[in-house]
C-alpha cells in the first residue's frame, strides 16, 4: 500500500519527528509508513488523515488506486 504522507508533511512543513509527536508514535514508525514497510492500524490511519484534514483515501492508496492517482 502506497501513501502520500511525505507530500502532506511537506505541505504542512512538518518533519517526521514533528508528525510523530503529534500522532503519539515514534519517528521510525512514520519513516516505516512512508517507505511502505509498515501499514498503520486503522486507528492510526484515521489519526493521520484527520491531522491533515483529509480523508484516508487521499493519503493511502490501495491496489488499483495507486495507478489511477
Amino acid at each position, binding site marked *: 500500500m502506497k501513501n502520500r504522507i511525505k507530500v502532506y508533511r511537506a505541505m504542512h512543513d512538518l518533519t517526521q519527528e514533528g508528525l510523530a509527536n503529534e500522532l503519539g508514535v515514534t519517528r521510525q514508525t512514520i*519513516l516505516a509508513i512512508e*517507505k511502505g514497510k509498515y501499514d498503520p*492500524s486503522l486507528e492510526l490511519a484515521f489519526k493521520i488523515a484527520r491531522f491533515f484534514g483529509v480523508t484516508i483515501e487521499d493519503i493511502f492508496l490501495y491496489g488499483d488506486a495507486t495507478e489511477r492517482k
Partner: protein
Amino acid sequence: MKRNTFYLLVGIVALIEVGIFWLSVEVERPILIQVAFVLGVILLYAVRRTIEERMEDERTAMITQKAALRTLEIFWVAFFAISLGSAVVAFSRPLGLRPPHPGPPGTAPPDMLELPFIGGFALFQMALLCLMIFLYVGFRVYYARKYGDWDTDEEQD
C-alpha cells in the same frame, strides 16, 4: 529519565545481580539471589516508565508480538522434548513404570535424585532460558529490520 541513563542503570543492576549471585553461592542462601533478581526486574520495569523519549507504539508492539510468537513456536518444541527426557528419567525409577532393576544388588538407580543431579537440571534450565532469549532477540532483530527499525532517510542526524 533519558534512554541512555536507563541503559546505564540496566548495566549497574546486572553487575549488582552478579555480585549477589556469588554472595548467594558463598553463604549458600538461594533466596538471596531469587529475591534480588525479582526486585531488580521490578525496579527496571518501574524506571522504564519514566523514560521521556517515546520508545513504544503500535509498530513496536507488533514487532514484539511477532517475535514473541515465533519464539514460543520454536521454544515449546525444545522445552517439550527436554521435558519428555526428564519424564523418562523420572519414570525409570524402581517405583515408576519400569519393573525392578534386574542387575546385581546395589547397581539399581537410586530412588531419589541426588543434589548435584538437581543442580545439573538447574543449569540445563538456564541453558534453555538462554536459548529462549537468543531466539527472541534473533526474531526481534529480524522483524525490526523487516518493519523499518533501522531505515534511514534524509532527516536522519
